């Protein structure tokens, strides 16, 4: 791997000191950048402990704009969990926008934490959110802007320990070279075990420290696990450096939901979701076969209604927020949701606090809930049928018939909503061009209902994304649909979904391809991620800043010996990582990291999918996915799995 010496890493590294960055140096850049309030901190409820009075300093980082990162609830929970510990201090940082990055590099200003302006490189631990793939290149940029070597192998005890966490860690292999430790699964308890071991091992070498950390359940230290590749390009084995280490790492799971952070951070500048949050339940058992979030967050744990109501009052009092969002993967599935909503409406009556309920289902009950919360305002109502026909919805286990959907649409328009947003996916397994006709027809049917009830003002916004076969889902063996097919199907949709009251939006194939590569790839892709970043790839989630050319060039270069040895061409690399159906007995790059939902169960359900068979929500009947088998000892009253004798 060649190092690009023109990159300004070296300058940043040279000016590190141990004290905080002086305010005047930050201030001197702020007149040049858009939305400078992102870079100054000062949020209400931010925690300002004395640096010298705390033993361990951890910096929580979201590697994209402040505007997005401030809305990340996982980091908010960890901020709370860590700062409750008297000997720990947790501060935050985010990746500045390109204008500020340029200004900081020019001025030789390293990335700093917002509470203290302490350079990120002076913290003991840097915890980066690896929630999704579009954050990967940004993570490298963030480390580099902090003056921290991006490769784990080039770091030692003089640099922060870099840890990653979030859903991306269920296959972190493409970024395994850059992180010292990944927390697999829920981090609320694991992070404190990690900081505890860090404190007792801080005077040893980094390697010894990592060995100690690797003993903690749920912590994955990639340097001790080396994939062995077979002749065809696949993975034949995984060698473990030390017999004392586990060969598989099981995700961490909280027996019950952690306490709601009450003194939530209140940003001064506008952010994407600028509101208070209460997580009402975690996990989802609807069993959509494409959905990774549902698969990796099992089992369902429900927060009791009384607890939510009490927290809601406390959060609003301590933040002053005018909106409270009830967070979960499927809000209406909470068994006490009806009582909960009624109580909250009563409680905040006349206080100008609105309640929002993201992730609703397509049923009358959800429409009623939304109506209760609307306060007479009917902006847009969202449906996610995902597929156009009943047959395809059976294949993906989305249990809603076209007939039922249309009658719910009727109810939505009748209650006064004027816009319905429809979310679909294309490129699903066994899909044909005829499935596009089903999407077109359904969109028109909904529009016609809207016109009949709401007149000319009724609108249907159709949003079409492309299916990504995610690790740990029933469809994890599926290939990514090819570009030509996607473009043809998008064309069919563009021709069919137009006219008054219909709007269509879709995803660029390049973004889907990149996401799939990074979500399914193996460790050899690390060289590619690094090269793409060197070539300028960052902000992959942003149309205005993403750099597709950098990725394309990095792929074309096959930027390591290992990649060139395994794949004769870039095409061969893509075919191997994206476009082939994986074999049921094949070793997948993420097989050693386990969610508790067994491969056996996923395969069974994959077969059900092929025959178009639905699988019921397991709150009605346990389907033995593996969760209870692996985590039975942790079961509490909050679980919705049956209690086994």
């Amino acid at each position, binding site marked *: 791997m060649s190092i690009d010496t023109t990159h300004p890493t070296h300058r940043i590294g040279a000016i590190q000191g141990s004290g905080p960055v002086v305010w005047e140096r930050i201030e001197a850049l702020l007149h040049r950048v858009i939305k400078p309030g992102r870079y100054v901190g000062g949020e*209400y409820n931010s925690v300002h402990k004395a640096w010298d009075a705390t033993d361990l300093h951890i910096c929580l980082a979201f590697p994209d704009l402040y505007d997005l990162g401030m809305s990340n609830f996982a980091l908010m929970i960890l901020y709370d969990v860590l700062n409750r510990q008297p000997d720990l201090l947790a501060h935050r940082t985010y990746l500045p926008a390109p204008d500020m990055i340029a200004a900081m590099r020019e001025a030789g200003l390293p990335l700093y934490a917002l509470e203290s302006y302490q350079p990120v490189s002076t913290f003991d631990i840097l915890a980066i959110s690896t929630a999704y793939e579009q954050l990967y290149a940004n993570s490298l940029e963030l480390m580099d802007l902090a003056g921290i070597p991006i490769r784990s192998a080039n770091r030692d005890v003089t640099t922060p320990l870099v840890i990653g966490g979030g859903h991306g860690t269920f296959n972190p292999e493409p970024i395994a070279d850059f992180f010292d430790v990944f927390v697999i699964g829920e981090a609320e308890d694991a992070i404190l075990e990690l900081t505890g071991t860090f404190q007792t091992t801080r005077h040893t070498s980094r390697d010894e420290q990592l060995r100690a950390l690797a003993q903690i359940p749920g912590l994955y230290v990639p340097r001790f696990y080396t994939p062995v590749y077979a002749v065809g390009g696949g993975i034949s084995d995984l060698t473990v450096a030390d017999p004392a280490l586990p060969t598989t790492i099981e995700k961490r799971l909280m027996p019950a939901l952690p306490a709601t952070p009450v003194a939530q951070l209140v940003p001064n*500048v506008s952010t994407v979701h600028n509101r208070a949050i209460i997580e009402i339940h975690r996990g989802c058992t609807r069993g959509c076969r494409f959905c990774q979030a549902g698969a990796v967050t099992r089992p369902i744990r429900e927060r009791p209604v009384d607890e939510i109501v009490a927290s809601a009052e406390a959060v609003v009092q301590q933040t002053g927020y005018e909106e409270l969002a009830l967070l979960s993967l499927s809000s209406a599935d909470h068994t006490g949701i009806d009582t909960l909503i009624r109580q909250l409406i009563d409680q905040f009556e006349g206080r100008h606090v609105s309640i929002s309920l993201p992730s609703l289902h397509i049923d009358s009950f959800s429409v009623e809930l939304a109506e209760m919360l609307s306060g007479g305002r009917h902006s847009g109502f969202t449906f996610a049928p995902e597929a156009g026909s009943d047959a395809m919805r059976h294949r993906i286990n989305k249990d809603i018939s076209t007939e039922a959907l249309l009658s719910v649409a009727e109810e939505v328009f009748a209650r006064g909503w004027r816009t319905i947003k429809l979310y679909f996916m294309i490129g699903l397994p066994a899909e044909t061009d005829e499935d596009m006709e089903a999407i077109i027809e359904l969109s028109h049917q909904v529009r016609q209902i809207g016109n009949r009830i709401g007149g000319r003002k009724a609108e249907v916004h159709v949003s079409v994304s492309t299916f990504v076969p995610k690790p740990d889902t029933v469809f994890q063996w599926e290939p990514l649909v090819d570009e030509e097919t996607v473009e043809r199907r998008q064309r069919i949709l563009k021709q069919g979904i137009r006219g008054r009251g219909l709007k269509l939006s879709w995803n660029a194939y390049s973004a889907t391809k990149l996401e799939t590569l990074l979500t399914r790839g193996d460790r050899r892709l690390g060289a590619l991620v690094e090269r793409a970043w060197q070539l300028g790839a960052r902000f992959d989630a942003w149309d205005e800043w993403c750099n597709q050319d950098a990725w394309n060039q990095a792929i074309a270069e096959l930027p390591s010996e290992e990649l060139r040895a395994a794949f004769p061409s870039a095409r061969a690399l893509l075919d191997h990582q994206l476009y082939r159906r994986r074999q049921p007995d094949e070793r997948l790059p993420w097989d050693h990291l386990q969610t508790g939902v067994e491969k056996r169960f996923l395969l069974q359900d994959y077969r059900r999918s092929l025959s178009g068979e639905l699988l019921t929500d397991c709150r009605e009947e346990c389907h033995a996915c593996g969760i209870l088998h692996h985590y039975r000892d942790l079961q509490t009253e909050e679980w919705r799995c049956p209690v086994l004798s």
Partner: protein
Amino acid sequence: MSSPVVMPTIAAGSGRHRITFATSRTLAYLSVLELGKVWERTLRRGGVPLKYSQGFNPRPRMHFAAPLPVGCGCSADLLDLSLDEPRTSKALCDAIAGVMPQNLVVLDIAPVDIHARSLSELLQEAEYSVWLQQTGEAELAETVAAFLKKDEILMPKRGRKYRGRFYDLRPLVKSLTLEPATPLPWLGLRVRVMARPGATGRPDELLRALGLADRPRRSTRTRLILDGEGPPPEAVADGD
């Protein structure tokens, strides 16, 4: 801070109050909407019964005298707020004392007659101080002198719909002086500008006109001059 002198009855207090406040550092980088949110949330934390407008999208009845430019703090700005239930100024002050965000300071709260003219109607002029880094003293003195000599300074209007159109900045600047030197490597300007609807001078526009728009700076609005208040004695006439 005004405190109640007489009448400690339950209904004591007013339904409208004027807050004099200061912001600095972290709170100097907000838009006017964002600063409004900061206030709304502070008042909600304090349990202050703000009055809201009617309709589907109720807004709190809170009005600043004039928006602060992004990047500008203030040392005595004004905010009027209407309440659902009357409160004394002292009660208001106590309610928010423990829930203020960093770098927001209340200097005074006083009751206002509900029929009194609004702050934006009363506002005439505003005074700013701007401290610049990376600027030579002689350079600054020269630029300022040259600016004051001119009768007309045409600046492009902001916003797309005004593209290609200009306004005259010069009559909007009522005075412009150099601040006495400090030991820091900063040089200061003090400027008084008009602040009426359709005739508002902005400090960042002034810096553009002076050719100093690229200099690192710290800006503060130091005073709002309302109708009926005379200009302060020390600020008379340099620019006129």
